[in-house]
């Protein structure tokens, strides 16, 4: 349900390859010295990926493990650089790649909130303003001064999500994040997602779980081994994806 014809994200022919096998080893050094070295070969994590997400849309990306979803997130959020193609993002991106992503294990909960805020380019006032909400939402108030390495994975997930929905951004990317939390917390997340959507933020959802994505998203894309199979209304994407997995 696009609320605007303005784009929030446009990807044109994005490609990225990775080398197969170990990068370097003594064996490789020696064999390449005698001229018999051979590369493990490259594979395409993303191959000519093009799509557009409108402003205020909730866009779903489905695909099995290894389809290139996380590589795509890394590129859109400026972590990795593509080998070919252009990605244009209007405004700030808040990526949530996995539980505890971007946390520093030695930093306390509070310091991690400050670190992630600084990474996103927020002012300390903006971080302070978001802190009470992050605390109540994630329910880690009593652990705010505890180093993150002592958090359970559930606490890390709640803190991750609390930060993600409390910090201001134009484009939110959630990569498989709802798969690890319990039903109660998922309901709290849904409330926040509805609020973000109502505020006109763009939300990109990635998962291999079709039920989850198609219940949230109006438009979407099916990514398979780095290739865009279908892009369009979510029910078309869902139909094509479930036909292939059936």
């Amino acid at each position, binding site marked *: 349900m696009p609320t605007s014809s303005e784009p929030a994200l446009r990807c044109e022919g994005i490609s990225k390859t990775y080398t197969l096998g170990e990068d370097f080893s003594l064996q490789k050094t020696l064999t390449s010295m005698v001229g018999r070295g051979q590369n493990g070969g490259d594979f395409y994590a993303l191959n000519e990926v093009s799509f557009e997400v409108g402003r205020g849309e909730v866009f779903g990306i489905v695909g099995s493990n290894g389809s290139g979803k996380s590589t795509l997130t890394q590129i859109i959020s400026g972590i*990795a650089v593509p080998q070919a193609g252009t990605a244009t993002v209007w405004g700030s991106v808040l990526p949530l790649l996995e539980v505890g992503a971007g946390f520093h294990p030695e930093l306390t909960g509070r310091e991690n909130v400050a*670190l992630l805020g600084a990474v996103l380019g927020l002012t300390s006032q903006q971080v302070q303003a978001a802190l009470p909400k992050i605390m109540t939402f994630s329910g880690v108030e009593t652990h705010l001064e505890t180093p993150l390495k002592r958090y359970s994975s559930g606490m890390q997930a709640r803190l991750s999500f609390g930060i993600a929905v409390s910090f201001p951004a134009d484009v939110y990317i959630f990569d498989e994040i709802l798969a690890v939390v319990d039903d109660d917390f998922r309901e709290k997340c849904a409330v926040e997602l509805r609020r973000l959507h109502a505020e006109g933020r763009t939300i990109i959802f990635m998962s291999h*779980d079709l039920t989850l994505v198609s219940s949230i998203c109006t438009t979407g894309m099916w990514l398979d081994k780095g290739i865009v199979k279908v892009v369009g209304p979510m029910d078309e994407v869902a139909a094509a994806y479930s036909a292939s997995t059936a």
Partner: protein
Amino acid sequence: MSSADASIALGRPPAEADPAGAAPTPRVIVPSKRRVRIADMWRSREVMWIVAMRDIKVKYKQSALGPIWLFLQPLGMLAAVSVAFSAVVGVDTGGVPYLLFALAGLCVWNFIQLVLSAGTLVLIANHTLIRRSACPRIALMNAQITSNLPFFAVILATTLVGTLFSEGFGLEILVLPVVVVWLMAFTWGLLLISASISARFRDSVSAVPLVLQAGIFLAPVGYPADRGGPTTEALLALNPVTGLIEALRWSVLGTSVELYVIAIALGWTVLIVVAGWRTFGRMETRFADFI
């Protein structure tokens, strides 16, 4: 899971849904060989500060003596250097008390050693931050310099207080801030090279400790550079750390210094800073791929 999934459905957005004001400025991501800019050093200062403060705090966590190590570490080095070069070898410092002479050398050496030994591993240790967040990597580098400043300050202050009560200062002391900035720049350049390389080739994880262990004998930390005669002095001058130590000693203790030694060290520093920045910039775009 599916019963909970249904409750997530967002439904229809409110009719007055405001697409968050005016259109934000676009950011274009293209294949690039380098993307980090000098201005990013300033822009990422907040991240740098948070990481540096934490590095200082965790250094002595779960440690019985805690910050006392701040003094014990240089004291232990000072004792070792004094025994080896003053008591056993018996070097001539040209009238300067040996302890002050060695402390001035350790000022420079200890800082380089602290930054490089921890800094070479900093990208590897923070690999989740590198792979999973858009954390500015240059901030991790700069935090290494910042978080080791207190250790440098303790040794330098001890040297200065000792000199004040024994020898007194000459006008050369006014140049000390320049020497300190020089040391920072030199160490920063070396750190960028060794940390960037270690992200891709773990060889530097083994090479850097070796260089640091051997280096304390190949730089005039505990002995004067002219001790071994002109040929040895010229060879020592090829080590950029020699010029830095000589410059700091000259500034604080008023010892003599050869201009050519300073010139060589300055030349090395420019080369290392430029090479460090270029190596880091070039490899930084792919840290997330091959760390």
